[in-house]
């Protein structure tokens, strides 16, 4: 047999299906009817060597490690009323509780961070667009002295601006700008409300779980 052959996952699956299709011979299937004495004897031996025996430690460790990795919180059954919870059960419950708390903390931190981003970002963007003189002030379209009560200081000097007409927003751009300003102003409130709703939801869910 070639030692350097490559066995693929498909080969392994095929081998498994071959093994699965091999039936147990009838005589093995039926088993030994006089098994009980052997089992009693073997159990006595096992009990006598219990000190060096790691079988049940391994058995429980498998349970704990695996369940800690994979199990869902609600999939752990509680021990019977007349039984003490096993160490394994306690460990898993503790681990899951810890994870649940971690999840809550991270959700809160992310929500708060998101709110700050919305608030700061929204404020900066809105301020930035309001401060742009070329966008928000008409460039020298009014004749000085032509309008009663018109303050000459309102006239913007456009002599240093190249192609002054091009800075005038067209109707679509103007609409988009208004929309953006509106979104920036409203977003922090929506974000804040969402965060408050999220935190409230988590608290209520936590309370309900505790009550259960």
């Amino acid at each position, binding site marked *: 047999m070639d030692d350097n052959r490559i066995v693929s996952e498909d080969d392994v699956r095929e081998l*498994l299906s071959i093994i699965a299709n091999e039936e147990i011979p009838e005589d093995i299937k039926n088993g030994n009817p006089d098994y009980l004495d052997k089992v009693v004897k073997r159990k006595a031996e096992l009990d006598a060597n219990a000190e060096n025996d790691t079988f049940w430690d391994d058995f429980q460790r498998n349970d704990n490690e695996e369940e800690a990795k994979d199990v869902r919180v609600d999939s752990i059954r509680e021990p019977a009323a007349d039984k003490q919870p096993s160490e394994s*059960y306690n460990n898993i419950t503790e681990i899951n509780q810890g994870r649940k708390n971690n999840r809550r903390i991270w959700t809160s931190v992310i929500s708060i961070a998101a709110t700050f981003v919305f608030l700061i970002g929204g404020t900066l963007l809105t301020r930035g667009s309001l401060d742009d003189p070329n966008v928000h002030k008409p460039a020298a379209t009014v004749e000085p002295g032509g309008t009663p009560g018109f303050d000459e200081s309102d006239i913007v000097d456009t002599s240093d601006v190249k192609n002054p007409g091009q800075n005038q927003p067209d109707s679509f751009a103007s609409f988009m700008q208004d929309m953006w300003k509106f979104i920036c102003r409203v977003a922090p409130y929506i974000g804040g409300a969402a965060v408050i709703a999220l935190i409230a939801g988590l608290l209520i869910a936590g309370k309900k779980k505790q009550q259960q």
Partner: protein
Amino acid sequence: MDELITKRIAKGDKDIIERLVRKVAEGDRNAFDQLITPFRGLIRSIAWDYFHNREDVEDCENEAMARVWQGLDRNMFRYNDSFKAFVSKVTANTAINMLRMKKRQGADITESLDGKTMDKDGEIPFEAEDPSVNVEEIIEKKTRKEELRRALGEIPPDQSYAIVLTQLEGKSYAEVAHMEEVAEGTIKSRVNRGIKSLTRLLNPPNYSDDNETRSGKSK
């Protein structure tokens, strides 16, 4: 009457199982006999998946039953759990332990060429040469199967157990997930990880998962 009780135990009747478990914990041999009889077929079937030879299957069965009893003494079984799941898991762990012990001792796991025809002593009987049978192919297949069984004892027990129950015992992922009290996806992931581990073990030491994508499909 006994047959009825056996059927109810096999179906997982919690009341009867709990009553018998309590009796077993008090040292009642007959109660143990009654409790374990419906699951002996399951124990042998799992042992067969791992060993494929009479001697080891019988040893594994006896050892697993002794372990089940010991587990009941030590309150390892929770009444809310499935007794069948407990028995299968104890059996798989026993088989894995035995495989590991055999590996340490350098012993070999032997099976007959077709996996079925063994005499009562577990020996491979002599068969007349049949020209239609490709002996090399049979030997290669047998060797690979033996390697695979050995590898089943080397991968993590949870993966080995998931593979044996779903791929060899023909149980559905949902059924095993229910027995193990985990999500169905967890069992699927254990099986996938297990098959990857087996693939790694069956390949030369310099094998990497990249080889799988390059040459695995080309077979």
